């Protein structure tokens, strides 16, 4: 797509690896008069696992929803693999991209929601093969075979014909993860995927995500309150506050030696411990 590429992407060393998977450029998001994100710039490299942390209302969910095109962008640009997602700069003007162009990019992005959002009018298997068959055009046999493998890998091999509502929250979330993976996304967005779960089943879902992180090269953008999980899975942590990135670092640095006082205060509050350290084993 030569006409619609990220002008900055080509400025690198010219190799494909230099093009970030996700790039926010001067992004602004308003809800009415409420400016949630302002002049936001950041990049997520291909294969990166980035965790967003920050106080409630800082705009973490909004960032994921913008990438998934669930919210409209008020200003600025988002590039996916160097390609503009919803808006592009054409002849010096910011113009919206066609629904068709957006859909092509959206197909490469998957999202897992806090509330699972499985389709209750379909069985578990139907939930997983729905989009591969009807969006990607796979044959039913092919999609079913892959769905069975995915169900196996999330530990639910016997649940293909169950109804979503017959499953526990943890099981539903594992199906939702399988459903997202069935689309073979390049980018996976995870918004507090364990917040609606009972504490004792949080571990099983995080274990599966950890396994995906270890065995695939999917770029992940993660919002979580599970700092241990952030530490295990991500290679970069970004601290948000007031709609901006106040600090970004590797998890080791971020959780043991945060530089910014906002980060220190936030981590102190969520970790609830005197020294703000976790997982220093």
């Amino acid at each position, binding site marked *: 797509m030569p006409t619609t590429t990220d002008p900055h992407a080509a400025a690198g060393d010219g190799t494909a690896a230099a093009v970030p998977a996700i790039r926010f450029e001067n992004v602004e998001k308003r809800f009415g008069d409420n400016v949630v994100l302002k002049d936001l710039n950041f990049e997520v490299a291909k294969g990166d696992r980035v965790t967003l942390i920050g106080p409630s209302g800082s705009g973490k969910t909004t960032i994921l929803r913008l990438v*998934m095109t669930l919210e409209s962008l008020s200003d600025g640009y988002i590039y996916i693999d160097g390609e503009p997602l919803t808006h592009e700069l054409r002849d010096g003007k910011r113009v919206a991209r066609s629904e068709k162009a957006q859909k092509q990019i959206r197909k490469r992005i*998957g999202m897992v*929601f806090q509330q699972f*959002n499985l389709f209750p*009018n379909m069985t578990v298997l139907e939930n997983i093969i729905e*989009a591969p068959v009807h*969006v990607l055009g796979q044959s039913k046999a092919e999609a079913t075979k892959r769905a069975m493998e995915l169900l196996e890998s999330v530990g639910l091999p016997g649940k293909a014909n169950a109804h979503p*509502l017959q499953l526990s929250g943890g099981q539903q979330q594992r199906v939702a993860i399988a459903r997202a993976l069935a689309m073979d996304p390049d980018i996976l967005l995870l918004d507090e995927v364990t917040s609606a779960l009972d504490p004792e089943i949080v571990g099983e879902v995080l274990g599966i995500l950890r396994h995906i992180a270890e065995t695939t090269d999917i770029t992940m953008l993660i919002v979580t309150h599970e700092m241990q999980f952030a530490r295990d899975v991500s290679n970069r942590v970004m601290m948000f506050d007031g709609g901006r990135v106040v600090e970004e670092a590797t998890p080791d640095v971020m959780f043991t030696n945060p530089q910014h006082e906002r980060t220190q205060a936030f981590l102190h509050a969520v970790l609830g411990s005197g020294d703000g350290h976790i997982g220093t084993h």
Partner: protein
Amino acid sequence: MESNFEALAEAWPRILDGLWITLQLTLGGALLAMVIAVVLGLGSRLHNIVLRGLCRAIMEFFRGTSLVVQLFFFFFVLPQLGLALPAMVCGILGLGLNYGAYAAEVVRGSINSVPTGQWEATTALSMSKSQQMIRVIFPQAWALMIPSLTNYLIHMLKGTAIVSFITLADLTYHTEQLREQTDTFFAYGVSLVIYFVIAYILTLIMNALEVRAKHRLGRGESLREALTPKTPETAAAEGGRKA
């Protein structure tokens, strides 16, 4: 009293003819109303302001004008404009448009009550607008709209009685005839019983549809289970299972 039943036996074939007309109007009207309800209900959610406005205007128009006048218009005025339709077609058209306009609001409301998370999941899976609606949203909205649609269906059944104004000899027309050979109490009593039985059967059918639609969403028992008479043991077992 005996002569009443003799008269009823004598009039019975004609009453059955009238019943048939009433059923044709009810079922034809219901089918047309459903199509119109879906078209207008979906249309009134469109982004395009012209199409949306048009759908809303049609809904308001047919809800805001009386069914009798609409029937008169189709039957007496359209022929003058060169379009003469059979009385049955006029009846179905009038009932379908009128109740379709009401039911459109039910369709629209039910679609709006499907949780936004469902829409968002379809977007995250890159489903197209029509796939979203046909494969995910409408099947869920359907279970929500059945109770209100049942209500309108029963209203429509009763509403069919006014078609005798446009020369159709329906159930009401023939029981009215019966009144001349019997007495008011008897004839209207017969009429009440027949309408009640049809309404009851329609309600049972719609309830079965609702049970099935809910079961498909993983809520409640299947239709087969619902229809199986419960012995104390199975009921107890079920209670035990739920507990």
